[in-house]
Structures are given as C-alpha cells and as structure tokens.
C-alpha cells in the first residue's frame, strides 16, 4: 500500500465516521422535533447576495417546544465533536509519519536565550545550498521565543550521507543597527531522524549575540 493510498484510506475513515455522526445527531433530533409536513431546513431564497447565512433553519411561528432530552443530545454532540478532534489529531500524526518517515526525517528547531543584544527579524535556512525556508518574525513571535518557546522551523526529508546546513539571521544588533549573521554546520545523516537546533544567545563578555547550530545526537 503506497503513501497516498494510506492517506486516502484514512480520509475515507474520517468521512465515514463524520457521516455516521451526522446521521446519529439527525436521528436523535428528528423524532417529534417538527410537525408533520415541515422541512427541517427551509430552502434558501434565490438571488440574495447575502444568502451565505441562508442555511440557517427557518424561523417558524409554529416551531415546536424543544424536546426534553436536549441535554442527552448535547452530550452526544460533544462526544462526537471530541471523537472528530481526536481523529483529526491521529490523522495529522499519520500524515506526518507518512510524509516524513523516521528514516529520512530532518527537523530544525529555533530557540533564543536572553536577546539583549539581538532582536530577531528573519531566519533563512539553506540545506545543501538550497533555500528550504525563510521565516519573518512578528514582535509577538519573537517575544514567545524569548520567553522560552522553541519553534520547529523546518521539517523535511534527507538521504543518508553528508550534508550542510546554513542559517542566515537578520535583525537589530546591540545598538539597534541592522545586523546580519550566519551559522553553518556540516553533519552526517544516518538512518533515523535528525534533529538540529539553531540557538541564539547573548555573549555577555563580548556584548554580542551568538549564533550556534546544535546537533541533537
């Protein structure tokens, strides 16, 4: 079974479960909910530019009082929603495992420490002299990194062998001037996932920022 086949199968499973959930909710809501001869959803009015909201149920003066078991129905809906969220998470993990198998996976993370001498603006990553990502940081994202956040900047695949990673950092330097620095790492990719970390820290003695690439063995 190839990768795309697996993904399609997973999507079909999700669709089937969603359809079952919708049917279940509809069946639970249907009995005695509407008087005979009344459609559950009124047909949308034609030719109305604002009819994006026209799928709302029609307000009917003869609408019946809500069924007494609405609480049970609400619990059912919440349970189904949770199932869908769980399935979506599983699907995401499955998709990631299929697209980036552990044998060829390479992930690059970014972390910052202190940040007194450097305000991050962009990071450009080049793997084997090919740009793989260029990320522009908003003040909020830079602040999150300074608070200890670690960002997964890149996730991709690499074949076994020797490779080179170059990271180019731009931002504001110690005195608020434009500042640009690079860091380079040659590494060997073996069978199994490879994790690399770009680390920006302050070098207090020189009052300069320091840029390192760390190989998580």
């Amino acid at each position, binding site marked *: 079974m190839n990768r795309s086949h697996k993904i399609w199968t997973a999507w079909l499973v999700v669709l089937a479960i969603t359809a079952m959930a919708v049917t279940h909710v509809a069946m639970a809501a249907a009995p005695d909910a509407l008087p005979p001869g009344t459609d559950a959803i009124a047909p949308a009015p034609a030719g109305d530019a604002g009819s994006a909201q026209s799928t709302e149920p029609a307000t009917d003066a003869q609408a019946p009082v809500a069924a007494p078991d609405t609480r049970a129905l609400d619990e059912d809906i919440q349970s189904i929603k949770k199932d869908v969220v769980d399935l979506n998470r599983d699907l995401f993990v499955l998709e990631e495992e299929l697209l980036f198998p552990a044998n060829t996976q390479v992930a690059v993370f970014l972390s910052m420490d202190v940040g007194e001498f450097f305000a991050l603006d962009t990071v450009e990553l080049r793997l084997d002299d090919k740009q793989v990502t260029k*990320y*522009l940081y*908003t003040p909020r994202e830079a602040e999150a990194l300074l608070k200890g956040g670690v960002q997964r900047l890149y996730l991709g695949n690499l074949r076994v062998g020797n490779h080179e990673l170059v990271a180019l950092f731009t931002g504001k330097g110690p005195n608020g001037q434009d500042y640009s620095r690079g860091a380079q790492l040659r590494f060997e990719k073996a069978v199994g996932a490879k994790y690399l970390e770009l680390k920006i820290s302050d070098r207090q003695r020189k009052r300069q920022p320091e840029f390192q690439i760390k190989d998580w063995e």
Partner: protein
Amino acid sequence: MAWTASAADAAYRLLGKPAPDFALRATSGKNFRLSEYRGDVVAVTFWGSRCGTCGAQLSALSRMVDTYQSAGLTALAVNVDDDQAAAASFAVAHPVSFPVLLDPAKTVARQYRVDNLPMLLLIDRGGAIRYVYRNHRSGSDAQYLEQIRVLLDE
C-alpha cells in the same frame, strides 16, 4: 462587484476557504502575520500607488476600522508596488489607521490570486475568506459596511 461565499460562481477559487497565512513587513518597519488576527474580522486589501481608486478605498476602510475596531474589526493593506519608496510616500499622503504592508515580490498577491487593484477580501473570525470585491466604486463603502457588520455579528 462582490462575490459571496454562497454564490455558485467559482470565479474566485479561494472563496469560502481558509485565508492563506502570510507575514509581511509594514512601512513602519514592523512585521505582521495574518494568523495573529484569528478571532477578528479582517479586511485585507491589495493596492498599488498608481491605482486610481485605491486611495478612496483605503480611506473608507480606515473610517470603518476607526468605528468598529473595538468590535473586532482590523484591516491590512498589502501594497504590490515594485518601488517601495513610492508605496511609502503614498501611505504618507493617505494616512490610515491600520498597517500598510509591502509585497514587492508579489508572493502574497500570487497566493491570493490578485487580478485587479484594489482587491478587497473580508475574512471572518474563523479565518475563512467570505467576501471578495474586485473593484471600488461610489457606493461600495455601504456594501463593505453591510458585509462587515454581518461578519462582526457572527
């Protein structure tokens, strides 16, 4: 003319779909990312300094943002000029109350399939593109306002 999410016309393929995320530098020097406004109604307009009606649309949007900002309306104006200096001077001549972003490489404009200037997109609180306007005429302001109010009420 406004294309709505309910229209059968598939002329604008991103309608009803999640707005592609982007990050751009503003004329102020700060960077802005669209996804940071999730939960707000966002008006994204693509404009150029040589476009005749862009200034009028920016002014109209600025007034609306001033009025409805507290209700959750924000706007981002994406300039697609090659010449960033021209964009900056235009922005100075037409001051607005929201960020003016620069997209000289037109990366974001391509993502959004911009084919006319000005082009305005209204994005709902969930991040989906709900309305698209490919032109600005007299009376367009009232249309924007009507649709913005619908999105703010959701």
